[in-house]
């Protein structure tokens, strides 16, 4: 079975770059095509979010198929919020049949955050169990219920980690657990609190987890002071230190300062032992990704014949 570009880059030992694309609240395939085309050559693989923050959008797998057709390597996100194990396993088979190679497993933001707050949350599996179910589908050829798949599948399984959530001390053990369950690559929550991220990585190195799986450090370019304040006060699981708010406040050109902060963050994480790449989440600001990658000195991206 052919290996996807993300796995090739990571296996080569190059510092990987992934970018996030948010599917639209419409059925306009061109929206995704346009953004993906803009990121072509700047990132190695493209995360497609699964109804992010519980807002109804085009399905991540459908968007993934669009990228496959463009010759790009999508990373399909799957949350545990909206589908039970029957639907998830069925969707995974469908995704693989469409040529998708990477699947990122997440718990999912609670439905109360989105545009259907009265919906029923599923949470049949949790994110760790989802990893194990996918690993067993691939490695053991069995579904969660124990029945055999009729033919083998190959998938590259990813997990997320949030060094900024609590209890902090447990976050390292939690990653170890996700790796045991089946995670082959990790993307972290966006880093603004570098001191805490470094402390987390120290714990990761102590357990040797960075040698078991590549860890991609998450970054978000901040477009405005308002966006920084919003994240600080309203987005759970993200820590935005006061110093960063002050730095933006003091800057004449907030966008430029936000960019600088993002590029600096990438350069800082590159120096941390055990960080294998960066994951850029420029949701609703996708067009800035090529500039970030260029300024961070991460071009050209590796290619494989």
């Amino acid at each position: 079975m052919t290996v996807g570009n993300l796995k090739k880059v990571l296996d080569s030992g190059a510092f990987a770059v992934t970018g996030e694309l948010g599917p639209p609240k419409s059925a306009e395939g061109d929206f995704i095509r346009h953004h993906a085309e803009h990121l072509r050559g700047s990132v190695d693989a493209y995360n497609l979010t699964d109804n992010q923050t519980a807002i109804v959008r085009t399905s991540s797998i459908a968007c993934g198929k669009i990228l496959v057709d463009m010759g790009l390597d999508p990373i399909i996100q799957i949350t545990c919020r909206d589908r039970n194990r029957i639907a998830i396993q069925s969707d995974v088979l469908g995704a693989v049949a469409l040529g998708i190679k990477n699947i990122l497993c997440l718990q999912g933001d609670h439905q109360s955050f989105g545009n259907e707050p009265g919906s029923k949350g599923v949470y049949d599996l949790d994110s760790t169990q989802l990893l194990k179910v996918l690993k067993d589908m691939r490695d053991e050829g069995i579904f969660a219920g124990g029945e055999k798949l009729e033919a083998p599948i190959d998938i590259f399984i990813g997990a997320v980690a949030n060094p900024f959530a609590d209890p902090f001390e447990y976050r390292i053990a939690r990653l170890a657990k996700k790796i045991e369950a089946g995670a082959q690559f990790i993307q972290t929550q966006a880093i603004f609190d570098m001191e805490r991220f470094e402390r987390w990585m120290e714990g990761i190195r102590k357990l040797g987890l960075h040698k078991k799986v590549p860890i991609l450090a998450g970054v978000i370019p901040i477009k405005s002071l308002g966006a920084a304040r919003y994240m600080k006060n309203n987005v759970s699981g993200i820590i935005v230190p006061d110093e960063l708010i002050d730095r933006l406040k003091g800057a004449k050109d907030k966008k430029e300062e936000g960019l600088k902060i993002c590029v600096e963050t990438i350069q800082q994480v590159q120096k941390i032992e055990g960080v294998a790449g960066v994951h850029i989440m420029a949701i609703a600001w996708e067009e800035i990704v090529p500039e970030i990658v260029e300024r961070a000195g991460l071009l050209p991206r590796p290619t494989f014949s």
Partner: protein
Amino acid sequence: MIVGERKPLQEILENLKPYKKICVMGCGTCVTVCLTGGEKEAQETAAAVSLQRKRAGDEAQVTTKTILRQCEYEYIDEITAEVADCDVILSLACGVGVQTMVERMPDKMVLPGLNTTFFGYPVQQGVWLENCLGCGNCVLDKTMGICPIARCTKSMLNGPCGGSADGKCEISKEVDCGWQLIYERLLKLGRLDAMTAVEPPKDWSSSHHGGPRKMVREDVKLNDSRQS
């Protein structure tokens, strides 16, 4: 206990509109303890309904009655004759009580006066907290007495999600993160190892997802006329 909240008075009045002889029936167990459906609340509700109907120029005859448990035939049987005359019973019991009354008095109209909210306990005077979902396969042994199914918003079995911050759940700063509580308890007991093993997918068939549940105990079943 089963915790309930009284329905808004407007909704109750709307539902009672077609009826003239109304009996507001309290339940003497769970909903009495949670101060929503006992004798006192039955009297208050009856007084409010009576007053509003009078004001609307549509007077009704409103009485009250409270039995120890609306969820058991033997207590219902004691009052069937007494309520025979009324057009409707407004039950202030939980959904179990309302349905048991309907089952036992199939010719009688019984309407709910409460919304049954959850299984829980009073944390302090005036505050009740949900802590069991009745999933049918208790995991409290694994988490040392704090339920991840009920206390974690996403019923996770392998630790907290990325939305846990400062001990609170991502949905509200008023809601404790269930896994933070479990973590602290395991830490205190020196049992953090319990959070390192991968917990397999839960078999939800023991819960309502397996269909409406029924328990049969052959050893205590009676074969006389009391079995109806």
